[in-house]
C-alpha cells in the first residue's frame, strides 16, 4: 500500500443476513456494500454521495470497523501504526478507535441530555484511558472546545441550552478530543439551516487543515460535497459507480447516474432551462438487486449487455474511475 494512502479497501463487502434459511424459505441477505475498492489519501477530504439506501453509511461504518466486514480487506496506515481492519481486535482495535472517529447527523439525538458539555467531550478520553488525571482531561477538553469555537462558559451547561449549530460543534469536539487521524462525518450538516451549515462546513475544513486530518464526508447533497471535498465517490446500490477528483467529477461526469444526480439539483436561476435528465422510478431494494449493472433498471442507455454483465470500475483518465459499459460512448 502506497505511503500516501490512509485507507485502502479492496473488494470490501458488507452483508447483513435478515432472514435465516431453513424452514421459512431461503436465506435473505442484504448486500449493503459489495466489492468496493477505495483509496483515501492522507490529509484529503473524501466525499461519498448517493441516494438513501445506496450503502454510503454502511461503507463509512465498515471503514470505522463499526459494521461487520463480510469479504475483502481494509488497510489503515497513518505513518505511526498500521492496522488490518479485517483482523483487528483487542488492544489494536482500542487503538484504532482513538484514531478513527465518527460525527453523527443529528446533533439533537447524538448528545446525552443529562451530561454537561464538558462531560460529553471528556467521555472518549475517560473511556479510552487517554489521560492520567482530571487536570489533564480538563486541559484537553478546553483545548479542543476552543478549536471548535466553544467557550468555557459553554462547558458547564447542558445540551438543551444550545442551538443546532452549537450542538454540532459539541459533537465535533467530542469526535476530535481523542486526537483521531481519520474522521467519518455522516450527513453532519444535513439537519442544519443553510447559514449554520456554512458555518459548520467552514469549521470542519479549518480543523482538517490545522490538524492534518483525513475526512470522509458522507452526504446526499452534491453542492455541499462539491464545495468541501477534494475527491468524490458516487455510490449506487452498494457499488461505487464513479470516483474522481471533485472538479473533474462535476465538470465531466461520466456515469449516467452521476449525470442524472447532478442535473436533478434545483438551480438557483429561475430561468435555467429544464435540462434535468429525469430518472424514472426509484432505487431497487438491496435484498433483490437486478442482475448485471445495478443501475440498468433506471438507466436510459441500458442495453442487453447491461442486463447481463456487471461493469467493473475502470480508469477513464488519471484518477477518474467509472463503472459503466458505455462511458466512452456517452462522452460529449
Amino acid at each position, binding site marked *: 500500500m502506497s505511503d500516501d494512502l490512509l485507507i485502502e479497501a479492496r473488494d470490501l463487502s458488507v452483508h447483513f443476513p435478515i432472514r435465516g434459511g431453513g424452514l421459512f424459505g431461503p436465506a435473505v441477505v442484504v448486500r449493503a456494500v459489495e466489492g468496493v475498492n477505495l483509496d483515501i489519501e492522507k490529509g484529503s477530504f473524501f466525499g461519498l454521495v448517493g441516494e438513501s439506501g445506496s450503502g454510503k453509511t454502511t461503507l463509512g461504518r465498515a471503514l470505522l470497523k463499526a459494521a461487520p466486514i463480510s469479504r475483502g480487506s481494509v488497510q489503515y496506515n497513518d505513518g505511526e501504526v498500521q492496522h488490518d481492519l479485517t483482523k483487528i481486535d483487542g488492544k489494536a482495535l482500542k487503538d484504532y478507535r482513538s484514531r478513527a472517529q465518527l460525527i453523527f447527523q443529528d446533533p439533537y439525538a447524538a448528545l446525552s441530555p443529562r451530561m454537561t458539555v464538558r462531560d460529553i467531550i471528556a467521555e472518549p478520553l475517560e473511556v479510552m484511558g487517554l489521560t492520567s488525571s482530571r487536570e489533564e482531561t480538563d486541559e484537553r477538553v478546553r483545548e479542543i472546545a476552543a478549536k471548535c469555537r466553544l467557550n468555557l462558559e459553554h462547558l458547564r451547561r447542558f445540551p438543551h441550552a444550545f442551538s*443546532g*449549530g452549537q450542538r454540532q460543534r459539541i459533537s465535533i469536539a467530542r469526535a476530535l478530543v481523542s486526537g483521531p487521524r481519520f474522521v467519518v462525518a455522516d450527513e453532519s450538516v444535513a439537519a442544519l*439551516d443553510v447559514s449554520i451549515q*456554512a458555518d459548520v462546513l*467552514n469549521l470542519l475544513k479549518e480543523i482538517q487543515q490545522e490538524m492534518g486530518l483525513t475526512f470522509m464526508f458522507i452526504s446526499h447533497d452534491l453542492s455541499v460535497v462539491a464545495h468541501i471535498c477534494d475527491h468524490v465517490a458516487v455510490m449506487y446500490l452498494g457499488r461505487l459507480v464513479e470516483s474522481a477528483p471533485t472538479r473533474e467529477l462535476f465538470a465531466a461526469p461520466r456515469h449516467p447516474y452521476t449525470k442524472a444526480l447532478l442535473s*436533478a439539483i434545483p438551480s438557483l436561476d429561475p430561468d*435555467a432551462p429544464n435540462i434535468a435528465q429525469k430518472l424514472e422510478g426509484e432505487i431497487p431494494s438491496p435484498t433483490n438487486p437486478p442482475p448485471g449493472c445495478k443501475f440498468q433498471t433506471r438507466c436510459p442507455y441500458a442495453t442487453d449487455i447491461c442486463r447481463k454483465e456487471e461493469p467493473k470500475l475502470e480508469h477513464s483518465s488519471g484518477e477518474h474511475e467509472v463503472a459503466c459499459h458505455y462511458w466512452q460512448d456517452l462522452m460529449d
Partner: protein
Amino acid sequence: MTRLLDVENLTLKFKTDEGLITAVDNVSFTLEAGEVMGLVGESGSGKSVTAKSLMKLNASNAVYDERTKIVLHLDDGPVDIMTLKSSKDLRVVRGGAISMIFQEPMASFAPAISIGDQMVEQLQVHTDMNAKRAKEVSIEMLDRVGISDASTRFKQYAFELSGGMRQRAMIAMALSTRPKLLIADEPTTALDVTIQAQVIDLMKDLVTEFGMGIVFITHDLGVIAQTADSVAVMYLSRIVEQGTVRDVIRRPAHPYTKGLLAALPSLDDLDRPLTPVPGDIPSPLDRPSGCVFNTRCSANLGAVCSRDLPDFTTVADSHRVACHLFNEGAAK
C-alpha cells in the same frame, strides 16, 4: 388572474409558561389562483405557523391578534377564516378548500389504515360521493400522480410504499378533494434529489391542470427558484422581503436574504467561500427591539435599527423589503 387569498396583519402569539411568545408578527401577503408562493426562512422563523394559521390549525394555546384578517375567495363568495370558530365550520376549509402536504409522509398517514381507506374517508367527509365513487376517484388520483398499478397500491399501507411513492400518495390524497389552496410544508426535504425532481415536476403539472394556489414552505432556495412564482423571506416571525422569485433571488435587497444566498453552496462557482450569517437566531423569548435582524446584520446602521421597526419599502414593482437601508431619510 383571480385573487384567491388575502392575508392581512397576521399576528399570532403562543401562551406558554414563560409568557407570550410571538410566532408570527404582522405578516401580510396575497395569492392568486394558479400562483405558487414560496415561504423561506430558517427553522424557528415562523413559516410553518404562518401556513397553519390559514386553516387555524395551530395548537390551542395560539392567540390570534384581533387585527388578523385571512380571507379565502371561493366560488360562492369570500370566507373570513378568523370568524370560523367550531371545527364543523372549519371543515369547509380544512381538507376541503385547503389541503396540506407535510414533510414526513410516513408520519402523516395512519399506519394501520390502508392508503385507500384514508383517501375514501376524506372524500366522504368533504364531498357527497358515495363509497364506490370515492374509490374510483381515489384510484384515478393515484394513477394521475404517477403511481403505477394504482388499484393494488390503493389497498396497501403506508409502510409498504417507498418514500417517493408515499409523498406521491400524500399529494394524490391532498388533491382528490380539488382544493383551491394547497399548503406544502417542506414536501421534498426528506426526499433524494432524483425523487425531489420528480415530485417538483408533478406539482408544477398539477398547478397548471387544477389552477390552484400553492403556499410552498421550504428552506431550499434552489427548490423555490424552480417552483415558485413569488417568494416571501421570513426571519424571526416577520416577513423581511417579498417579491417575484426573479427579483428576490437575482437582486436580493435585505441583508438577511443576501446572507442566505451567500451561505448557499452553488455548483456554478466552487471556489466561492461559504459565508454564514454571523451569530445565531435569537430566542423568541428574547426578541431584539427595532428590526428583528439587527443583532446579526452586517449592514447595521446603529441606533435606528435597534430602535425602530423598519417599514416596507418598494424597490421594484412588487418587490418589497423591510429594511432601514431603503428608508429614505433614515439616519445614515
